[in-house]
C-alpha cells in the first residue's frame, strides 16, 4: 500500500498553474524520482506535500490520513521530512547543533522540567547528542561535528541537511536536489545511502537533475513539465518516452 498519496493535486499562483492535476504515490522501501525541466513545478510539489503551500484542489494522504489541511509543523510531526534545494542550514550553529535541532520531536520533556534543569532533561539531551553523533558517523562526518555549518563545502552541507531530516525519524523523506553541487563519485555515494534508507522502510521522493544518479537509483519516475505529469513508469520506460525527450530537448523543428 502506498504511504504517501497525491490525488488530483493542483496549485495555481494567480493565473499560473504551477501544478496541474497531479496524482502520484510513494511507498515504503521504494525510491521515487520526480524529474522535469527547470520550472516544471517539482519544488512546488514538495512544498505542497509539506504544507508550506496550500492546495488549490486535490487531496494528499499519508497512510490513509488526509494531511491536505494540516499546518507544516503537524505534517512534519507525522513523519514527513524534507531537505531544501537552496541548502538551509543554521549557519550560526555548529554541525552537531544543526543535527541536534532535528531531534525536536523526540524530546518529550516538559518546558517546566527544562526550565529547572532537571536531571531527566539532561539525560534526554545526552541521548539526543549521542544519536546525532551516530548519524555523523554513519555519513562519515564525525570529524566535522564542531565546525560551523556555514563553513562546510556544498556537498557536506547537503549531507548535514539530510542528517537533520533523518533526525525527525521520518516515514517519508523528500529530497530536493540532494546531489546538486556534487561530483559523480559523491553522488554515487549518496545513492548508496538512499538505497540503505529505503531498505529500512522509508519512502523516498527524490528531485534530481543528475540523470545518471536518477536512472540508476530510482525504482519509479514521475516526469513533470509545466506543472503537468507527462510520463510515469520505470526509468528505462520513461527514458524512451517521446514526450519526455520533447520536454527536455524541445519539439521537432519543422
Amino acid at each position, binding site marked *: 500500500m502506498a504511504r504517501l498519496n497525491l490525488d488530483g493535486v493542483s496549485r495555481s499562483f494567480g493565473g499560473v498553474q504551477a501544478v496541474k492535476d497531479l496524482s502520484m504515490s510513494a511507498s515504503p522501501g521504494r525510491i521515487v524520482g520526480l524529474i522535469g525541466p527547470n520550472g516544471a513545478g517539482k519544488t512546488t510539489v514538495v512544498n505542497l506535500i509539506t504544507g508550506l503551500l496550500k492546495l488549490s484542489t486535490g487531496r494528499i494522504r499519508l497512510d490513509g490520513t488526509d494531511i491536505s489541511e494540516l499546518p507544516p*509543523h503537524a505534517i*512534519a510531526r507525522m513523519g514527513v521530512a524534507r531537505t531544501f534545494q537552496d541548502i538551509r542550514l543554521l549557519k*550560526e550553529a555548529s554541525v552537531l547543533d544543526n543535527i541536534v535541532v532535528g531531534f525536536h520531536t523526540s*524530546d518529550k520533556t516538559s518546558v517546566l522540567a527544562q*526550565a529547572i*534543569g532537571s536531571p531527566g532533561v539532561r539525560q534526554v539531551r545526552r541521548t539526543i547528542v549521542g544519536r546525532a553523533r551516530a548519524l555523523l558517523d554513519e555519513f562519515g562526518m564525525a570529524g566535522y561535528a564542531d565546525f*560551523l555549518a556555514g563553513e562546510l563545502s556544498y556537498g557536506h552541507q547537503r549531507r548535514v541537511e539530510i542528517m537533520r*531530516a533523518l533526525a*525527525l525519524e521520518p516515514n517519508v523523506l523528500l529530497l530536493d536536489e540532494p546531489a546538486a553541487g556534487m561530483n559523480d563519485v559523491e553522488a554515487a555515494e549518496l545513492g548508496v545511502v538512499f538505497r540503505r534508507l529505503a531498505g529500512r522502510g522509508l519512502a523516498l521522493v527524490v528531485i534530481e537533475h543528475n540523470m545518471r544518479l536518477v536512472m540508476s537509483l530510482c525504482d519509479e519516475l514521475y516526469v513533470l513539465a509545466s506543472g503537468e505529469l507527462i510520463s510515469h513508469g520505470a526509468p528505462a520506460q520513461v527514458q524512451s518516452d517521446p514526450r519526455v525527450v520533447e520536454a527536455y530537448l524541445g519539439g521537432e523543428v519543422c
Partner: protein
Amino acid sequence: MIEWLASYQSLVDLILLDCGLALSQFVVLRAGVFSVATPGLASIGAYTAAILTLRMGVPAAAGTLAAMLAGTAAALLLSIPLSRLRGVFQAIATVAMVQIVLSIALYATAITGGANGLNGIPKQVGTLQLLLVIGLIVYVLVCLGRSRVGYAFDAMRQDETVATSLGISVARYQALAFALSGAIAGLTGALMAYHNYSVVPEEFGFGMLITVLAYVVLGGRHSVLGPLVGAFTLGILPELARPLADNRLIVHGALLMLVIIYLPHGIVDSLWIAYRRRLGRSAQSIIATKDIADGAA
C-alpha cells in the same frame, strides 16, 4: 570610603535591574521575535507591585509574584495579535503597546497616580535580593537554552521555514518566548518598585526601550551572557570618565553603530563564532593530515 562604597553599590543595583530588563528583551530576540515590549511589560509589573503594596498592604514577595504573573498575562495577550506579524511590523506594534501602557499610567490618575507616579513604596529590595532574583532568571534561561526550547528558539530565529519542517510549532514557541519575556519584565518591574521607593510613568518609555535594545544588540542574542555583558558595558561606561557620562547618548549611539557594522552578532556571540571558526580550522587541518596519512598507508 564608606561614601564611595555606597555610591558604588547603587551602580551595581542599577546594572542588576538593567540586566533583568536586558534578559527580558533577549528572550524574544533569541526566538526571532522582534518585540520591544519589555518597557511596557516592566511598567505593568512595577505598577502591579506598587499598587498592591501601597493600597492593599500586600507583602513584597507576594507583590513580586503578582507582578510576574501580570507581566506574563499581558505578554501572552499581546502574543495573539503579534503572531500574525513579522519583523519590523512586530517592532512597530510593540512600540505602540509601550506607548499605550505609558498613556494609561499617565492618565489613569486614580489608580496610577498620573504623572507624579506612586511614591513612598517601602524599600524591601537590596543588592542581595537583586542578585538572587537575577541569578535565578539567568539559571532558568541557561537551562532552557540548553534544552529543546533553546534549540527551537535558535532554529526559529535563523530560519522559520526550517523550524516548521522539523516539527516546531512557531506560533507556540513565539507565545512561549513572549510569556517568558513578560514574566522576566514583570519581575524586574516589581524589583524596581521595591528598590527605587517610587514608580513614575516616563521611566518606562521610549528611552528605556532603546537602552534595553542596545544592551542586547551590543552583547548578543544567542548566549545568555550576551545581554549581561551588554548591560554591564553600557552601565559602567558613564562611570569610567566624566565626558562619557556627559555625552552618554552620543557614546551609546556611536558604540551601537560600531557593533552593528563590525560585530553584527554582538560581542559575546561574535567571540563565540570566531572561536568556533578557529576550532573548525584546526579540526580541518587534523582531518587533512589524517587523510594524507591514510593515503600514504
